[in-house]
């Protein structure tokens, strides 16, 4: 414990010299380049969070039974979550290869011309979003499943007796009772998607041009390719503030939730 307290103190001491250079590092950050990084990060995050949460919820609701088939499907969908980002990224570069890739072949079979997934600056970021959702959707699914299993079954029976259909039961029982889960996932997925790095480093190196440079990759580039440690540290500090703010928002949301129930 003393160790982690010590490290956490040291972190900030080491960031301080960056500040002594003046606010220059922060001023250097305010640029069109940085603005693009922030825009990319927000696009990537929103894409990943919205898609994986919606898909995760849908899968959880449909798979919420304790049959063997259900368990098998759950496990297959979750499996990618434990596989290394490096392997997943390499695999998808190969699958999306414009010439020999499986995806291009399958699309040609159904007569669709695929886009240049990773080579086109209009598509590359969204391709990363799709691959990320493919890899991580199992996580919101199992968290939602845990949330669903906490909902008492008699609520549904009572609603069914009152003549509520499937959609109505979802709308008035499942969805409101899952609100804490949804909030939890919203914040957790936002924070983890802000941390996206491996997939960019391996699949696109930020390209084409700078269309897939997202936040952590930017910090990495500044620190280890341009050796601007001061600027990188300034970016780290901003990043930290955003994460603390998000966590605080989550805490507030949860507290309000508890008041509602009480």
């Amino acid at each position: 414990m003393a160790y982690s307290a010590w490290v956490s103190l040291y972190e900030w001491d080491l960031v301080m010299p960056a500040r002594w250079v003046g606010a220059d590092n922060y001023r250097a950050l305010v640029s069109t380049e940085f603005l693009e990084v922030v825009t990319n990060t927000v696009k990537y995050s929103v894409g990943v969070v919205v898609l994986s949460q919606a898909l995760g919820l849908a899968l959880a609701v449909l798979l919420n039974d304790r049959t063997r088939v259900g368990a098998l499907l759950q496990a297959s969908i979750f499996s990618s979550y434990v596989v290394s980002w490096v392997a997943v990224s390499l695999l998808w570069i190969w699958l999306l290869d414009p010439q020999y890739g499986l995806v291009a072949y399958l699309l040609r079979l159904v007569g669709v011309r695929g886009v240049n997934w990773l080579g086109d600056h209009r598509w590359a970021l969204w391709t990363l979003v799709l691959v990320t959702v493919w890899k991580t959707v199992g996580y919101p699914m199992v968290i939602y499943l845990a949330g669903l299993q906490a909902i008492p079954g008699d609520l549904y029976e009572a609603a069914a007796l009152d003549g509520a259909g499937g959609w109505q039961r979802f709308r008035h029982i499942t969805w409101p009772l899952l609100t804490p889960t949804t909030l939890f996932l919203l914040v957790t997925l936002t924070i983890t998607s802000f941390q996206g790095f491996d997939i960019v480093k391996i699949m696109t190196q930020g390209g084409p041009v700078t269309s897939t440079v997202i936040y952590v990759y930017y910090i990495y580039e500044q620190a280890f390719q341009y050796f601007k440690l001061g600027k990188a540290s300034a970016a780290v500090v901003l990043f930290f503030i955003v994460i603390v703010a998000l966590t605080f928002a989550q805490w507030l949301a949860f507290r309000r939730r508890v008041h509602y129930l009480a």
Partner: protein
Amino acid sequence: MSPTRVPIRALTVAGLAVVALIEVFPYVWMVSTSLKDMAGVTRFPPTLWPSPPHWENYAKAWTSGPFLRYAVNNAIQTLGILICQLFFGCLAGFAFSKLRWRGRDACFLIVIACLIVPPQVRFVPLYMLFSKLGLLNTYASLIVPYAVSALGTFLIRDAFLQVSDDIVDAARVDGAGTFTIIFRVLAPIVRPTLVAFSLFSVVYHWNDFFWPLVMTTSEAVRTLPIGVAMLREEGTGDRWHVIMAGSMFVVAPVLAVFIVAQRHIIRAFTFTSLK
């Protein structure tokens, strides 16, 4: 069940099966590609099962870099981190749950605060620290930053709190020392928590690419994910059979464990995040 229900149910199952197929088939393709030769990789239309299978791709990938070194390093890193995290987690969990001391709750708040600091925030300052200490490119730079896990401490404390103080007192009366109480009495009782956390930690660190990439430049301490990522940089694009074979070195152990212990692993990931 009304007659319209049956087709809806069948459609749902079919839809879910398609999703599961989309999730799993790429791994089948990975294995299939890893057994092709160059001609098979670029053949059009692509074939699913290469004949004859080219197992030598695995040997090619393994010898294209010091992969034995990478694998050993990966194991040292993953297990080193796990042992430290469990050891310190049990000690701190005990101090935070079964001992009373001034400032305990304040210190515990600091631990909770550490939970929200991701490695991507710490790497720049820690990199500078380790380079000042001359510890870059050592196992220490891979293991020490993760030696104490806030999450682990939190989970273990929580589990220890569930154990009645009477058990601790009884052990003490029997003459057990603090270490015996922690590791011989309490740890076995909270084994499910320890197992769940261990699975989580091992999967995370075995796959970790970011931290070793930042902290190491020397092949002597680099790990499998880095070695595999470098396979692609070595050659031109069409060596996909070798790259896929190499990827299996990272993927296969995790998937093998996952297939055997899927229920435990899914529970571990749910448990570690919902607490």
